[in-house]
């Protein structure tokens, strides 16, 4: 199923989509359809409620003794990792941090969630997020992906985020931005502008930064092979950060 899923076709596969068991290619077409069809979004939302409700029928079960303590230890270790990685970001420790990976996973998940929540609930959202953020596939950069670091303009303060462009089809853009790492606590709308090799540009979406931090993702109608990079611009057109795609 390609990019032209009809409402009738969507109703055929909607249950599988809502339950998160629709094969990837069909899912991509369905998601694209939902992006432009409010009726089908509502339909899927209702089916997602059913899926959530089904899980709610599962009986609870007491975990093994000591579980709470082990979770606490795990959270403590994760927080310690994050703190250490923050030091990496400031150049106080060698940079190859957990935080950036974690943030990317979070960003990819959140971007997918943000999109998914336009039409559905947790199930669809987390299923989509898993595609980008499953533990077994953490922030891979392979033949199907373009990746670049976002860097601030002019100050040479280093990376302030990452952009991933999944070749698709459909092509998807995910990005995570943390301008606070460069001391910029900008808040407000920013635009993601993709730059072609011939210098022309196309704005593919806007999202909001809070205190310099934000994440976003969306399908993009672009040919990935023609792209050279990306820019982040504020509402007044100021370029906040740029990225240059290397070999994918």
């Amino acid at each position, binding site marked *: 199923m390609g990019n032209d899923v009809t409402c009738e076709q969507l109703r055929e596969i909607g249950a599988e989509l809502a339950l998160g068991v629709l094969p990837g290619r069909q899912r991509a077409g369905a998601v694209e359809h939902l992006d432009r069809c409010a009726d089908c979004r509502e339909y899927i939302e209702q089916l997602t409620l059913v899926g959530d409700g089904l899980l709610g029928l599962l009986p609870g079960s007491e975990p093994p003794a000591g579980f709470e303590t082990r979770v606490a230890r795990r959270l403590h270790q994760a927080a310690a990792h994050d703190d250490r990685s923050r030091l990496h970001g400031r150049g106080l420790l060698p940079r190859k941090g957990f935080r950036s990976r974690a943030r990317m996973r979070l960003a990819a998940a959140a971007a997918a969630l943000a999109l998914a929540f336009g039409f559905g609930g947790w199930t669809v959202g987390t299923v989509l997020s898993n595609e980008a953020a499953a533990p*077994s596939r953490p922030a891979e950069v392979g033949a199907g992906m373009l990746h670049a670091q976002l860097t601030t303009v002019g100050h040479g303060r280093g990376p302030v985020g990452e952009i991933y462009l999944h070749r698709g089809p459909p092509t998807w853009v995910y990005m995570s931005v943390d301008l606070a790492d460069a001391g910029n606590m900008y808040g407000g709308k920013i635009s993601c502008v993709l730059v072609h090799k011939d210098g022309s540009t196309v704005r593919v979406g806007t999202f909001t930064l809070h205190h310099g931090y934000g994440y976003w993702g969306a399908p993009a109608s672009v040919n990935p092979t023609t792209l050279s990079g990306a820019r982040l611009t504020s509402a007044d057109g100021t370029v906040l950060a740029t990225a240059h795609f290397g070999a994918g």
Partner: protein
Amino acid sequence: MRVIFRGRLAIRQPGRTVYPGMQRFRFPVGRLPDEALLSGLATGDPELAATFVRRFQHTVFGVAIAVLGDPQLAEDVSQQTFERAWRHAQIYDSRRGSVTTWLTAIAHNLAIDVARARRPVPVAPEDLDTLLDVVTDTATPEQLALADEASAALRSAVARLPREQGRALVMAGIYGMTGQQIADVEQIPLGTAKTRIRTAMGKLRSTLVSPKRGDHG
């Protein structure tokens, strides 16, 4: 971890810990609303985190053990669920569903990932029938106490499904099996498997009298 709450956004601030939202609560943390506890989890406050885990571990582990059937794997998935909740607390949106529903979905997806990695077909036939019976049987007193009308209606609707549709529903909805996997297990054509999923879901959808998200207890 030093964090300041501002609305739903947790903001790290070096040197001090301020919980403006939390300061308004004048009763034990065990009585905090789920959302407040989730926010507390994000702060790294040990007491709030422990309370959060204590409140939801029964539900989270229940989902994981139902999908995986292995206590050790289920515990690992449950731990991952709480870690993910901690990391993602800032993007939780109560308009989309309850904290319980959110956590359940996280645990479910993690469990399915593990199940898929372990074996091609994530369920043995006898496990499937057992789980279908559990889902459709009369709820325990505890479940009855927690369940709302929609949940009870849904349970009844699942129980009324023809057995083959109920099996397809459980395989897809709980074990995360694709139509093709269901077709293989049931030895039926792919189209039949898809039809069973679709028909079952359609019947359950019609039971949603008042589609209030995430209130299934």
